């Protein structure tokens, strides 16, 4: 088996050497023919991936090309990817501080969701967000490796597992397998063999299932390590060989070198002088192909040391001495460099930690500040709202107060208007009243004077002894005194009525003779208008139903209603008279009738009538067709209120424009 392995490996080595030196033609063509940065980037990333585990310098070169192109075009996500890959290469070449810088930068870009779309390529992930998570996953992976190389063992697993979590989230089997593989390897280092086996098995299964075998050699080498740790040397050796086969097949120099190292160590432990020398030599060859490799376990110093041990085993002391010297120098240099790098790294990572701590502190402070601001803002908003509410409230109060005032004003105004309407109708009445009082007063005066004259005559006749004549005169005086009393009472009634009419407070309802009331106000209205306009005249007729009983009502209110209706009626006939001239006979009629439980009062005029477009408005307050200053527009509105609201009656209007108007009032008995 040893021989077969040797032969097969020896046969394969030239192919390998050939493969590692040249890029495949397809990539070379792609690099040459790329007409834009997007294509250039694509070709360069392919070139990087080709050299990723074959040659560190070439890999660094191409990854820097991708970084350059990504930066040039401001493709943030691709910058992060390049930085992560660069970090990986720098880790492998021992440039830990730079690797750390690159990876931290990659993190800061990949962690920002805003950068998700800042990319040319969606593949292999279908959405920008998944692409971002992929890069983040990649960065965690690379960071885990850096932590491993810098012996920050406590952080290694965290980053690999974070990588796996993200890979699972975006359902990327390739990244899952790489995570599994690294987690498994970490468990080997931690001597948790069973855990390591589970992860490596999963990694292997996925690798075979999806045909992704680039790192299968690494997995196989891990299986070898596990077997060795379990004491199964044969199985370990078999895995190492399978690993080497796979590495050669996949052209993975890094894992091949690793495989050679594993076998060298294995054979040295077994004191197999030929095989150990063979693989030690192979390891040195591959490490030279790969380029600078400075991990603690794998570096050129280790290669020299293995050769020294191999020659020592073979007792070829010259060669052994030579490699011992080389190993010493290399190790010393690597050690120094490593110490230097680690020191820098530690400083940097310490700074980074401090920085992170600061950041954390800042974050806390920031969060606190934000919280404070949020709280303040909230308070501010609350205050503003409170203020607005307060203001609204205040304004509402103000508005309410204004409204209240306005209402009070309105009520006052309304009262005043009603009062002025009363006064207006009183004014209309005054002339009529004056006339009505003047007449009885004239009679009182005249009959008194006549009676005095008659008294003188009585004396004369008595002297003459004309008793019959005296009796006749005394009869006259008696009649005159009756007239005086009658007219005195008439004037008295008119004055009382007038006082009642102008009185403010609503009077009690009293039993009222509607017929007398209607007659009285008809006359008052007529004479009032006559007093105002001497040319005015109209026929009046009354048709009173003597069966109408006295009705409980506020006399002066119904009187005012009637006065209004009469005034309107007289106004209407007067207007028509002006238009139609002498051929027109103005006539105003008032009639009463007992119909059921109502007394109907009908006021009819043959005046101008009410135009149809006005009929709906005549009961509205302040509506008037009279010229400004002549009517308050409250007459009918108040009348309606008095009849309907004050007395539970009804008021209907019939009118034909240009022919007549009839108001019908019904007051419950």
């Amino acid at each position, binding site marked *: 088996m040893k021989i077969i392995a040797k032969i097969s490996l020896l046969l394969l080595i030239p192919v390998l050497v050939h493969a590692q030196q040249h890029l495949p033609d397809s990539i070379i063509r792609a690099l040459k023919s790329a007409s834009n940065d997007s294509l250039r980037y694509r070709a360069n990333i392919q070139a990087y991936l080709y050299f990723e585990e074959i040659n560190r310098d070439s890999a660094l070169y191409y990854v820097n090309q991708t970084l350059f192109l990504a930066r040039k075009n401001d493709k943030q996500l691709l910058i992060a990817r390049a930085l992560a890959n660069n970090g990986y290469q720098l880790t492998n070449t021992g440039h830990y501080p730079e690797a750390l810088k690159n990876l931290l930068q990659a993190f800061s870009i990949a962690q920002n969701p805003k950068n998700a779309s800042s990319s040319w390529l969606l593949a292999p992930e279908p959405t920008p967000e998944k692409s971002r998570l992929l890069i983040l996953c990649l960065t965690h992976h690379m960071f885990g490796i850096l932590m491993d190389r810098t012996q920050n063992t406590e952080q290694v697993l965290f980053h690999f597992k974070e990588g796996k979590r993200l890979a699972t989230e975006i359902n990327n089997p390739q990244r899952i397998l790489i995570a599994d593989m690294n987690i498994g390897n970490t468990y080997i280092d931690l001597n948790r063999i069973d855990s390591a086996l589970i992860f490596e098995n999963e990694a292997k299964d996925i690798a075979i299932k999806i045909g992704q075998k680039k790192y299968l050699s690494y997995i196989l080498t891990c299986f070898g390590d596990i077997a060795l740790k379990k004491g199964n040397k044969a199985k370990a050796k078999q895995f190492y060989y399978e690993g080497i086969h796979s590495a050669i097949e996949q052209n993975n120099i890094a894992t091949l070198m690793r495989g050679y190292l594993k076998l060298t160590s294995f054979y040295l432990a077994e004191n197999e002088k030929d095989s150990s020398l063979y693989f030690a030599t192979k390891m040195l060859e591959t490490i030279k192909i790969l380029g600078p490799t400075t991990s603690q376990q794998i570096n050129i110093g280790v290669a020299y040391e293995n050769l020294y041990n191999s020659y020592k085993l073979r007792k070829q002391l010259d060669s052994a001495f030579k490699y011992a010297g080389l190993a010493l120098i290399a190790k010393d240099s690597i050690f120094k460099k490593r110490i230097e790098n680690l020191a820098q790294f530690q400083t940097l990572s310490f700074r980074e930690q401090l920085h992170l701590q600061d950041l954390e502190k800042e974050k806390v402070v920031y969060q606190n500040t934000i919280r404070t601001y949020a709280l303040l803002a909230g308070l501010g908003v609350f205050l503003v709202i409170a203020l607005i509410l307060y203001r609204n409230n205040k304004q509402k109060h103000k508005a309410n107060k204004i409204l209240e005032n306005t209402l009070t004003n309105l009520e006052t105004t309304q009262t005043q208007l009603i009062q002025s309407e009363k006064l207006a109708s009183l004014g209309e009445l005054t002339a009529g009243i004056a*006339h009505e009082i*003047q*007449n009885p*007063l*004239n*009679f009182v*005066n*005249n*009959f008194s*004077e*006549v009676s005095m*004259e*008659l008294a003188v*005559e009585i004396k004369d006749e008595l002297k003459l002894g004309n008793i019959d004549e005296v009796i006749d005169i005394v009869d*006259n005086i008696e*009649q*005159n005194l009756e*007239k005086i009393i009658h*007219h005195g009472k008439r004037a008295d009634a008119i004055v009382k009525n007038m006082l009642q009419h102008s009185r403010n407070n609503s009077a009690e309802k009293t039993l009222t003779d509607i017929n007398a009331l209607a007659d009285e106000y008809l006359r008052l209205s*007529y*004479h009032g208008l*006559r*007093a105002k306009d*001497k*040319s005015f*005249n*109209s*026929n*009046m007729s009354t048709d009173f139903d003597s069966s109408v009983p006295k009705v409980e009502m506020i006399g002066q209110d119904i009187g005012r209603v009637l006065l209004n209706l009469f005034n309107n009626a007289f106004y209407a006939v007067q207007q028509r008279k002006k238009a139609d001239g002498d051929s027109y006979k103005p006539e105003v009629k008032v009639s009463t009738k007992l119909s059921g439980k109502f007394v109907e009062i009908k006021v009819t005029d043959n005046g101008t009538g009410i135009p149809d477009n006005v009929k709906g408005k005549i009961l509205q307050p302040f509506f008037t067709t009279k010229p400004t200053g002549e009517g308050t527009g409250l007459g009918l509105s108040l009348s309606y209120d008095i009849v309907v609201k004050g007395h539970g009656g009804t008021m209907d209007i019939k009118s034909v424009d240009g022919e007549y108007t009839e108001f019908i009032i019904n007051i419950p008995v």
Partner: protein
Amino acid sequence: MKILVVDDEADVQPLFIQRFRKEIRDHELEFDFALSGEEALSYLKEKHQEVVLILSDINMPGMSGIELLSKIRHDYDAPPPVVMMITAYGDEENHRQAMQNGANDFLTKPLDFALLKEKLKTLIH
């Protein structure tokens, strides 16, 4: 001399009769009464020849005194009766209208019967 008094106030009648008691008794004056312009016109249709003087109130329901005056002036011109207008509203407008329509005189209420008697005396003689 026959005088027609037109007034819607019925009490005007006893007042005139008493005021002119002596004149009536002595048959110097004779009074007839109408309660409206319309009544006055129908009275005049029959007796316009007898009536020498017409005393009319202006403010009456229905036909006003001014209307009555213009009708009288229109219908009865041979001989034209003397027409005196009486009104409670002794204002210029009524006076002007009365004169314009051919009133012979214009009196205001309350009637000054002494003055009226003087006027009647000058009219008779």
